Structures are given as structure tokens and as C-alpha cells.
């Protein structure tokens, strides 16, 4: 049976063996993920750019410590998340809103189903939704991006953020509920 970590292993071994352009290939493969995590956390594009550089420098320095016990994508995502989190902590920016604190309660029904009100033009809904996402706190915004944009499963998001799976589900559930609520406020 094929080892699912084989591509990760080959890529890491190539970088550690200092094969030409191996690290550049790694960066190219994961720069999108890094950008989505960091930019969703910190918002400022210049800060996000600098933190992505910092992330990959750390990946290069500590890659020998990667033990293949999680996907390389999760490991790099974790580095990016930690770098962004430290940046926010230095600036004393909270990653969750005070009323958004979840204490690990499990919300099994992650999807809240339900269609939005008929009659609204979809383009308009998407535009308002985008501005509503901006108004979420950094952590729920990042979780939402990883789940909906990168399509990363909840257990992997838990590995990246270090937040328990139940809390991730709660954040997703609450974010969706909040977005629906904000949309109702924004749309006439």
C-alpha cells in the first residue's frame, strides 16, 4: 500500500539534502496556505507578507525536527499560525471576541443547513458576506478560511491551531450563525 506521507517525505529529504531548488519548491507549494492563515489572522497585507517570510525561514531552520507524525501541510500551517499568533499577542490584539469564547462544548451539527432568504441577489449577498467575514475575530476568521477555502478537515485544523476539535466546530457554528445575523442587519 502506498504511504500517504511519501510526497512529504521526498520533499523534506530533498530540502534537508540541500538539493537545488528543493526549498523553493516547498515554499511555492505551501505559500498559498501560509498566506491564507497569516493574512486572515493579522489582516494588514504588509505585516502578513513579512510574517510569511518569517514562517518559511523558521520552516527552513527547523525542518529537521519534523517527524512525519502529521502532514507536512499541517506542520507548516502550524508554524504560520504560531508566527501570526505571536504577532497578535505582541500587539495585544485578541484572537477571539469576548462573547465568542467557547469552552470546548461540542456542537455536532457543524452545518446549520438553511438557505438564505430568497429574493436577495446572490452577488449582493456575497459582497455583504465578505464584509461580514472581515468583522469576525482573527481565530474564527482563520478557521472559516481553512475550512471553506483550503477545505482542510476539522482534525487537521485542530493540529494547525492547537485548538480542540470541539472548539473548532463551535467556532464554525457560531461564525455561520453570526454571518447570517450580520447579513440580516446589512441587507434590507
Amino acid at each position, binding site marked *: 500500500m502506498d504511504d500517504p506521507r511519501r510526497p512529504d517525505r521526498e520533499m523534506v529529504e530533498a530540502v534537508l539534502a540541500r538539493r537545488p531548488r528543493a526549498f523553493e519548491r516547498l515554499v511555492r507549494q505551501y505559500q498559498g496556505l501560509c*498566506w491564507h492563515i497569516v493574512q486572515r489572522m493579522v489582516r494588514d497585507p504588509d505585516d502578513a507578507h513579512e510574517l510569511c*517570510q518569517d514562517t518559511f525561514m523558521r520552516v527552513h531552520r527547523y525542518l529537521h525536527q519534523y517527524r512525519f507524525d502529521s502532514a507536512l501541510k499541517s506542520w507548516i500551517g502550524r508554524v504560520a499560525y504560531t508566527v501570526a499568533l505571536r504577532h497578535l499577542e505582541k500587539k495585544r490584539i485578541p484572537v477571539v471576541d469576548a462573547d465568542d469564547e467557547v469552552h470546548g462544548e461540542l456542537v455536532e451539527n457543524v452545518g446549520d443547513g438553511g*438557505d*438564505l432568504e430568497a429574493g*436577495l441577489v*446572490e452577488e449582493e449577498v456575497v459582497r455583504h*458576506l*465578505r464584509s461580514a467575514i472581515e468583522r469576525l475575530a482573527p481565530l474564527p476568521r482563520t478557521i472559516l478560511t481553512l475550512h*471553506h477555502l483550503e477545505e482542510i478537515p476539522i482534525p487537521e485544523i485542530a493540529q494547525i491551531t492547537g485548538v480542540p476539535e470541539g472548539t473548532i466546530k463551535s467556532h464554525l457554528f457560531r461564525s455561520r450563525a453570526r454571518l447570517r445575523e450580520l447579513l440580516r442587519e446589512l441587507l434590507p
Partner: protein
Amino acid sequence: MKNIDELIGRALREEPSRGLPAGFAARIAARAVTGEFSRFETFLMIALVGALVVCGVMNVGRLGSEGMHEVVANGWIAAFLACVAVSWLIGMTAARSGMSAPPPAPQ
């Protein structure tokens, strides 16, 4: 109207985002290699300074106080200080001309 999950996915996908610039990967890879060399240089410098200190201590022990007076009188201390000053000046000049600066951040 679509489900909110699909709409969230679409809102995130279609967001106008600057993203990372073209050539980001190549620049980071080059910077990582430069970083490796500077770590090697730092290691080399520490090793050489360590060897110098050890040799200095051994010679002081060997020559004793009278021998040290002779070393000072012959101008060896002045020569050593001159070497340190010249090395420092070269470093300052290189830093000002950007020779030892890290590669510029990609725009």
C-alpha cells in the same frame, strides 16, 4: 438561493487579495541559503576568537609578568588594537555600502 456554506466559500474565493508576490519562493529560498552561510560565519568567528583567547592565556602563563612587560614594550598590544580597529572599520564600510545587508524584501 444557495446554502450559506457555498456562499461563504464563494465570498472567500472571490476576495480581492494582494497575495504573495511572484518570485516570493525564489527570494525566500535564496535568503535561507544566505542565512546558512551567516550561521557558518558566526560559528567560524566564535571558534577563532576562542582559539585566540586560549592562546593568549597560555602565553601569559608561559611568559609571566616580566615577559608581558616585554610584549607591551615591543608594541604588540598596539599592533593587536590596530588590527581590531581596521577590522571594525572594514565592517562599518561594508555595512554602509550594503555588502553585508540581507537581500531586500520582495515588493
